[in-house]
């Protein structure tokens, strides 16, 4: 391991005195510029700050991640129009994770090590987040992660702006039990960690109430044939289908459900999903999913001044026929939360920002109001919307109070 020990004399021998001087001189600008706001050599100048956007814009996840990229860019542009962060304009460097998890890790390293970005907004799937996590922890970067996810994670280097599983699931099950008198549930999901963990949480909650899960079923990602499970559902006659099918499978599932004569508007059975946002409905078709209930924290149809302004700005920027789903809104929160934290800390240093995180709030959030919890997730409301034929959700319920994020629920510690 002698090679690893490059001591000062060793460096001198390799570079010579002139080289060492040049090396020191190169290192200097990073230190000399505004020492107080940036003591760790981030790409911050007197009037700009560089941040990273890391999503898949090619490959199978591009379908889902496009909205997040658009939201993050919009937020950055709006912040710049208001004068930037600590008087510095935000410049973003966008990298493509290409729906490939090792690529995500590699690009994260590039953003943090080569570009020295102050923060990164990105990732969508849990798999991509897990892939970049060691990189962010090694180089002490900060990632703003927008997707609702399974929980069971709390990194000092990630802010989770979407719901973790309990926020999404508990209130919605309480609601169908109370409002719709549901007694039996059929749990159905794609076969990977998020649906499985979500259903585990759901099952525990259902059984705690003394109600019954009559079926639990998983299909491989990309599965396109749901006839068998639809037959099983017809036979078991559950009150509620609790669905967490994702991606292209979603389209197949809802089309086949309709074709098999299950009309969701009759609510027999009622369908409650945690995976279909307005984005997914574009592909499924409003007429095929009409009547289903979704549990999210944000719907495009939310009526409040923040959201109206957000939807208007989003459409002006990205086109009139665009729709905004839950994750897109959560992605939009990222740059704003970062701005608030930087301004409170008075510095771009990740360590200083981390100290001020708990309690950072956003009164201008399209979903209403959010606040960062000590566990790096957001306090936010849970809402239930009913899918309409035009592809929008009608909000039928929202929790009165903000729900506390609980990434490590009882029984999982």
């Amino acid at each position, binding site marked *: 391991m002698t090679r690893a020990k490059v001591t000062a004399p060793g460096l001198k021998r390799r570079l010579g005195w002139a080289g060492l001087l040049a090396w020191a001189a190169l290192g200097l600008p990073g230190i000399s510029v505004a020492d107080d706001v940036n003591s760790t050599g981030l790409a911050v100048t007197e009037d700009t700050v560089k941040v990273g956007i890391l999503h898949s*814009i*090619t*490959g*199978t996840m*591009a*379908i889902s991640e*496009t909205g997040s990229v658009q939201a993050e860019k919009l937020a950055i542009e709006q912040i710049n129009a208001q004068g930037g962060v600590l008087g510095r304009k935000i410049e973003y460097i966008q990298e493509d994770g290409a729906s490939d998890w090792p690529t995500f890790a590699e690009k994260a390293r590039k953003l943090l090590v080569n570009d020295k970005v102050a923060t990164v907004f990105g990732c969508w799937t849990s798999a991509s987040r897990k892939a970049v996590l060691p990189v962010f922890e090694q180089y002490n970067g900060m990632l703003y992660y927008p997707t609702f996810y399974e929980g069971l994670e709390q990194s000092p280097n990630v802010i989770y702006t979407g719901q973790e599983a309990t926020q999404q699931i508990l209130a919605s099950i309480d609601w169908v039990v109370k409002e719709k008198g549901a007694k039996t549930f059929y749990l159905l999901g794609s*076969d990977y960690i998020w649906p499985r963990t979500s259903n585990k949480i759901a099952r525990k909650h259902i059984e705690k109430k003394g109600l019954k899960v009559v079926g639990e*079923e*998983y*299909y*491989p990602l*990309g*599965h*396109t*044939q749901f*006839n*068998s*499970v639809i*037959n*099983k559902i*017809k*036979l078991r006659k559950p009150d509620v289908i609790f669905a967490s099918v994702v*991606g*292209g*499978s*979603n*389209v*197949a599932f809802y*089309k*086949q459900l*309709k*074709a*098999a*004569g299950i009309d969701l508007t009759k609510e027999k059975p009622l369908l409650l999903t945690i995976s279909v946002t307005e*984005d*997914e*409905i*574009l*592909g*499924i*078709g*409003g*007429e*095929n999913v009409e009547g289903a209930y979704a549990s999210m924290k944000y719907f495009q149809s939310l009526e409040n001044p923040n959201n109206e302004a957000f939807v208007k700005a989003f459409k002006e920027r990205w086109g009139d026929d665009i729709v905004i789903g839950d994750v897109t809104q959560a992605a939009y929160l990222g740059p704003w939360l970062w701005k608030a934290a930087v301004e409170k800390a008075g510095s771009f240093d990740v360590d200083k920002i981390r100290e001020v995180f708990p309690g950072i709030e956003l009164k201008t959030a399209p979903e209403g109001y959010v606040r960062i919890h000590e566990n790096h997730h957001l306090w936010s409301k849970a809402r239930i919307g009913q899918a309409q034929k035009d592809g929008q959700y009608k909000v039928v319920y929202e929790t009165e109070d903000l729900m506390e994020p609980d990434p490590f629920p009882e029984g999982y510690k």
Partner: protein
Amino acid sequence: MFADYSMPELMSIFAMQGFAGLSLFSIFVLMALGLAIIFGQMGVINMAHGEFMILGAYTTYLTAGLFETVMPGLYGIYFFVAMFLAFIASALLGMLVEWLMIRHLYHRPLDTLLATWGLSLILQQAYRSVFGAREVGVSLPDWMMGSIAVTDLVEIPINGLIVMVLTLVIATLVYLLMFRSGWGRQVRAVVQNRPMAEAVGIDTGKVDRITFALGCGIAGVAGAAFTMIGSTGPTSGQLYIVDTFLVVVFGGAQSLLGTIASAFTISQAQSTMEFFLSGSMAKVLTLLVVVGILMLRPQGLFALKVRR
């Protein structure tokens, strides 16, 4: 396992599962026929098969839009026009691809594999640039999305029936074309002995091009039909490609009859097991059985006896 259900319920299960199996069978056949023609008859491993299917799906999407705005009165039947256009679009693209790329790579199966895989990436990105990264929703006339209620429990999806009929029609047409027409005789001659076929005056280049185009065209029709049951996005084709190859290889690459037999076996096995096991386990078991049989019988279920 059966104790929870009453007798009529059990009867309904079998009826519905039987139908589910049959509709899976027709989907497999529809998906695999085009590939069986290209892979089986020409020896070209077409990794872009799924993308040709999605071209058909996008054609359907565009046709739906066109009918909705220009001739709303005829909207109820647009689907049949769309299928025809899907065939034309995919076949034309197939012809172009054969001329530009495939014909330079005959007898180099691994190179065609790479080249068509590259083609699939190019097509995916092209769809993404033209139609956007998000999935598009292909709307269907109401009558196609309904179901026929036979009893309380048994409901037959109309789109399942349409796929079945379509599969039957296309399979029959392919059969007639391959085994009862002069052109089919030429194709078979080229498959069995290319130099000899050339020697008796068959334009093998042209036969190749048309065969490839035909395979792609059928993929396009399959893609159009699948808008009824699945998603339409730049990468949706990838959802089908594995199953398609599975069916063709299991059936014995050179035999169209083998493709049909294998589609039947796999679909029935899968849908029966899906009912009693979980979805993922059913898939695992199906793949295991197929791998097992292929180990014992590498040439697939039906093998054509030809002199190499």
